């Protein structure tokens, strides 16, 4: 992974804006920000400590070539995808998507902050869901609950047990999923082939080495 990081840094000769435009989903919009700050003013997270930099600062840092600071920042991982900034941006920048694009790119380069909870959830969810084409809810919950150790997992489980029982009664949760049963896509191989093709296309489009 850090190979890719070095590769990309070298390829764009420290022109980080160009790198973002080519490699980050919706990155070509970054140059259009006019630094008004409406995004920052609209964010409902109100920049609690996890947000180091509001979006317009991130955009400014990209233009100023602050590659390291941007990619390792936890800021874009804090986005809750409420789309408030996206709707309000007078320049119509797809800010939410750019935040996700940056987060994903940082992850691909292996420089995203470790143990970042949003990142952990995203990774867990993705792996879980792409395995069979459907989410295995029991395993997803287990992985999340027991992330901080056995005791913490049990505590969390007990706290949520009423919700879980309700879901089971309403047939929204199949406990057999814990043993590998439960809903799955019919053509799992097809799903995997599709995802592989998508990755290949993306690598081609962005000039990356196929994974």
């Amino acid at each position, binding site marked *: 992974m850090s190979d890719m990081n070095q590769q990309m840094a070298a390829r764009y000769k420290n022109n980080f*804006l160009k790198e973002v435009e080519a490699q980050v989903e919706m990155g070509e919009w970054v*140059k*259009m920000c*006019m*630094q008004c700050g409406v995004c920052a003013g609209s964010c409902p997270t109100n920049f609690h400590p996890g947000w180091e930099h509001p979006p317009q*600062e991130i955009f*400014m840092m990209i*233009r*100023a070539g602050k590659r390291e600071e941007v990619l390792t920042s936890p800021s874009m991982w804090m986005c809750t995808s409420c789309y408030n900034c996206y709707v309000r941006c007078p320049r119509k920048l797809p800010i939410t998507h750019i935040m996700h694009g940056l987060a994903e790119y940082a992850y691909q380069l292996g420089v995203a902050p470790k143990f970042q909870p949003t990142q952990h959830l995203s990774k867990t969810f993705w792996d879980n869901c792409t395995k069979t084409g459907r989410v295995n809810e029991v395993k997803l919950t287990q992985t999340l609950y027991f992330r901080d150790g056995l005791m913490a997992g049990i505590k969390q489980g007990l706290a949520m047990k009423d919700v879980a029982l309700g879901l089971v009664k309403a047939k929204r949760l199949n406990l057999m999923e814990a043993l590998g049963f439960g809903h799955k896509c019919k053509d799992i191989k097809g799903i995997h082939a599709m995802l592989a093709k998508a990755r290949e296309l993306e690598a081609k489009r962005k000039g990356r080495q196929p994974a």
Partner: protein
Amino acid sequence: MADMKTAAYICKGCELGTRLDAAALVKTATKEGKMHLVREHDFLCSAEGVAMIQNDIDNEGVTHAAICACSRRAKTEAFNFPTTAISRGNLREGVIWVRPDTDEARETTQEMAEDYVRMACAEVKAMTQPKGNPNTGGVKTLLVVGGGISGMTAALEAARAGYKVVLVEKTGALGGWTAKLHKRIPTREPFKSPEDNGIADLIAQIEADANIKVYLNATLAKTAGAPGRFKVDIAVESGPTATEDVGAIVQATGFTPYDMNKLPHLGGGQANVVDQAGLEALARAANGGPIKRADGKEVKSVVFVQCAGQRDTTGEHLQYCSGHCCNTSIKQAMYFKDGNPDIDTVVLYTDLRTPGNGEDFYRSAQNKGVIFSKGAVSRVESAGGGCKVKFKDLILNEETEAEADLVVLATGMVPTSGPDLDALAEATRVAEGGDEAAKEQVIQLRSKSVLNLEYRQGPDIPQFKHGFNDSHFICFPYETRRTAIYAAGPVRRPMDTAQAVEDATGAAMKAIQAMENAGLGRAAHPRAGDLSFPTARLEGCTQCKRCTVECPFGAIDEDERRFPLFNESRCRRCGTCMGACPVRVISFENYSVNTVGAQIKAVDIPDEFSEKPRILILACENDAYPALDMAAMNRYEYSAFVRAIPVRCLGSVNTIWITDALNSGFDGVMLMGCKHGEEYQCHFVKGSELGRYRMSKVYDTLKGMNLEEQRLMDLEVAITDIETLPQRINDYAAKIVEMGMSPFKGL
């Protein structure tokens, strides 16, 4: 006048008939107004009512008519009798609309109405109908000073409207700064790329137009005369001086870029630092190819520094924003990007301002990859083969730096507006005392003159803020403080070419209007079309020079015996001279010390035990009187004790009116005029200020009469004070009641 026949008309429309006792008003006009003919009508402004008045004029020989109906600002088209002197008794806006329709108010309301009838009758008898002086000068040639885009536009617009134009350009070629631009900011859809500067086409049009006479390498040596009859001496380099007769002048003398050598900290004077004009020169030299520095190196990276020496709060550099520079830097960044997208172009700004359709242009530049960084530049140093720009990134809040082959400073516009008249007047005053340095300064300041006007107020049009030839006529941006001389383009305020074209077109239209008015003996703005003009009864004149000095428009010179000599077509008919005259010899046909004085004397003053004080309001007709009318339209009520008389300007108020009013038993006088000072709103520039200055002297008179100072009240009224004005009147009326009645009643 021997054959004066007077008539009064009482209107009963608009509820006047039901709210007021019309028969009593007729009696007032007959018995007290002593009008020869008094008629009432149910609907005076109707065709029938107007025909009735016209019939009296035609068949009864009525020469003076008092129309007692609505405000003089209403129904002016219906009550338009050009040969008859007309006064208006304001019974509608002045009485019934500001009074409650109650039994207890009826008596005071009726008294108010009767007073306005008396006043209208008294006023009209003191008036004559102005005929206008058509012999003030009928030259219809426009002089345009400056051959840049503003001047050429003004010349072409006037020529297209059918007027002859004389265009004087200081340099050897037309085009001005715009001709020096490689390209200009786009003026049409889709506003995405710089466009041709358009100058070649304009010059061709000028050369092809038989109405336009061009003087190159020429300046104005002397401008004498007045609107409609200016005589200008045009000094042509290496040639004889030419003389032209012109009717009006458009001054489009443009600007010079602020000298970047005054900005050494931003690299002004360094080899690889240019101003925006310097970059235009480089771009023109490159002619579409790669832009090279003076040393021949191709520019691969460039930093634009916005607001260089502009919006400066220290007072050392320009304090204002020049308006065009953000768009200009965007345009110049595109010179690089359009040629080679790999060139790094960074614009460092604190606030990016792109007026008009500049927002699309800005977005286009972002799309082309121009980087815009919000940063305040502190230093530009030469480093390596280029420059190092140190700045504070205002978004990331950190000191940082950028390197570039070339730095472009957006230095802003300095108007070519001639000497500051106040400084010149002061230097002249000191020089007269024999001071050699001051004499030198006078010569130096005079040498900067653009128009070389033979006006006692100085050789050029006055400057307003930051040396621009603006006028601060808030509602009338093209007006200046010298009649028929209009400033257009960046000499008036900072602007780009598109705005300059618009500005020049407007100025040309105003100039045409001024020439036409001058030819007919009519006033220019704000009393456009007024045919009256001031005359002085010279037998009584003491040659005190107050009128000549105080006239805000330089309309009054002195003849060889030091009597006032009116340049009628320069005059705006404000009456400031009339207000100034201590011996009251200056008057207009339809506005004089007498017309107002007679109204004041006509008001019936109840005795001091009546509990009915009388308050005189002298209200500026431009702002205060319309505000009173509009308050009435909104039915805001105010005291029945006031009697309002419109005046042309607070500057025309002669102190005799105040002393007469107080002597005859008025309990208070309210003056309503426009704001004066730096942010003045006076339509006659200095009128309200001069008026107020004079009024401050009246307080001594009050003291002499043993009257309280509060008997005179000076109010600053704007046309928007519709809601607050009635309250202020009522407060003052209450104060007068509290103070008690004037001891001068019935004397």
